[in-house]
């Protein structure tokens, strides 16, 4: 059935509906990666967003049990050029269409995604809606829609839980954690405790962690309460810390630095990233709507460790006084190149060092 995408600026793109037949509203962004659509649509960082895929054909891999980044996808819509129908009989895999129907998420295919992405590059991320009929009512509804800024509350855990292991005790502060982080911590047999971001400093320290991870998450970091920044400021001075994605942005804010909003969000994995100290180049999955402002970086507290070689944005920071560091990109490789996992190796080596010096 023909359905339509209306953008906030009034532009209409038409295509065929798949997934749920629902009407949906969300912030529209685009993803230039050529693999990992399941990980992407289940990544909690996309809470409340509609994703346009640059990959010409999406859905050919079906849906796998091992490629979820969260239990329930939070995206509001999926726009693709062509949809591959996968037999659900083959290896008993579920297909994308059925998956989206189950989660009441609408999709649109046979859309000129090249034109749509060029348009979004020029006009930026904006509100959008997927509807059956383009009329004044649909346009009014879109204009009247106020998008939430409570994405972290929507996705992060409100209760502490354990993901036990026999190794180091790692506390993860959850801002909308993706599974990939827990998966890699599992590779290190870490004994993980995931805590809500509202946890107090005392509650964290009572658990006697060997290391702390500030998780990835959705939304604007400046919408989070000041208490989060205080938490980071105290913990970074006591225990090794790694911030990822939103966690990296919060780490910067906690250390007297500022962010800028990107005109068009970047989601993809084709930007080379340089580790400055070794001059080595790595690739990693990125998903960012904000970057640390190089002119508002407090260089007395932080220094830059990684840079994006395409747009020169800051991709990594490290504290001058404490074993605390952060990366803007996603080093867990789900989806994305595995070479970025070395960030976790660095973190665990720092943890080993900390534990040895404090025993």
């Amino acid at each position, binding site marked *: 059935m023909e359905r339509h995408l209306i953008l906030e600026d009034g532009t209409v793109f038409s295509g065929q509906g798949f997934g749920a037949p629902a009407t949906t509203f969300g912030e529209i962004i685009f993803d230039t990666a050529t693999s990992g659509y399941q990980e992407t649509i289940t990544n909690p960082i996309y809470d409340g967003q509609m994703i346009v895929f640059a990959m010409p054909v999406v859905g050919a891999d079906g849906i796998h049990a091992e490629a979820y980044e969260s239990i329930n996808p939070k995206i509001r819509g999926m726009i693709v050029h062509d949809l591959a129908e996968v037999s659900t009989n083959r290896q008993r895999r579920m297909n994308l269409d059925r998956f989206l129907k189950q989660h009441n998420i609408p999709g649109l295919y046979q859309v000129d995604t090249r034109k749509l992405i060029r348009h979004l590059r020029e006009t930026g991320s904006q509100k959008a809606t997927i509807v059956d009929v383009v009329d004044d009512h649909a346009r009014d509804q879109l204009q009247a829609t106020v998008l939430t800024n409570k994405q972290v509350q929507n996705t992060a855990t409100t209760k502490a839980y354990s993901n036990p292991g026999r190794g180091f005790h790692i506390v993860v502060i959850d801002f909308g954690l993706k599974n990939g982080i827990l998966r890699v911590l599992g590779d290190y047999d870490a004994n993980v405790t995931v805590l809500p971001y509202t946890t107090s400093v005392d509650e964290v320290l009572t658990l006697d962690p060997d290391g702390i991870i500030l998780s990835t998450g959705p939304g604007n970091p400046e919408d989070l309460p000041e208490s989060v920044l205080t938490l980071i400021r105290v913990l970074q001075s006591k225990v090794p810390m790694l911030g990822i994605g939103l966690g990296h942005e919060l780490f910067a804010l906690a250390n007297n630095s500022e962010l800028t909003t990107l005109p068009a969000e970047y989601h993809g994995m084709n930007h080379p990233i340089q*580790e*400055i*100290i*070794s*001059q*080595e180049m790595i690739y990693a999955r990125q998903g960012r709507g904000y970057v640390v402002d190089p002119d508002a970086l407090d260089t007395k507290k932080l*220094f830059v*460790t990684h840079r994006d070689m395409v747009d020169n944005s800051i991709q990594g920071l*490290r*504290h*001058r*006084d*404490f*074993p605390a*560091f952060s990366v803007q990109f996603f080093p867990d490789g789900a989806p994305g190149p595995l070479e970025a996992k*070395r960030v976790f*190796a*660095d973190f665990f*080596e*720092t943890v*080993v*060092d900390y534990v*040895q010096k404090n025993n």
Partner: protein
Amino acid sequence: MVNKIVLDQASMQRALTRITYEILEHNKGGQNLILVGVKTRGEYLAHRIADRLEQLEGVKIPVMAIDISDYRDDRLSNHTKLGLDEDDRVNIIDKNIVLVDDVLFTGRTTRAALDALIQIGRPKTISLAVLIDRGHRELPIRADFVGKNIPTAQNEKIQVRVKEIDDVDEVEIVH
């Protein structure tokens, strides 16, 4: 007996990177810092750390090489031969020195290096960075910055190889 690579090139690079970050953390942006490499391989490692510091901070940290052969405690000597080359001798008085060596074992080499250093001046601080700490200390010495702790047996040998003279970066346990 089978020899075993315990650190390959990538992990050796990463270990040096982490040591560099830690040195920065403890020396406030490399102010007043001097790196002193214990000959032979410590010297190359010290240069690697200095290169990393330069990439990060854009400052050239002085590197010196120290020869401890005349300060060993298993040979009689009146320390006539100074441990530092005349050419690259920098004023170490009131400086923060990071002594760099490849392997920390009994601690006797470090002791000798400390003596050699103190004979030429009184630094503000001396700290110790080693790529490998293999245990079995015979003196009260401990490293401030360790690339990797590798528990070993007394009779094993740790062979550190560096690209500059060995054509390859790796650490091997030799039985």
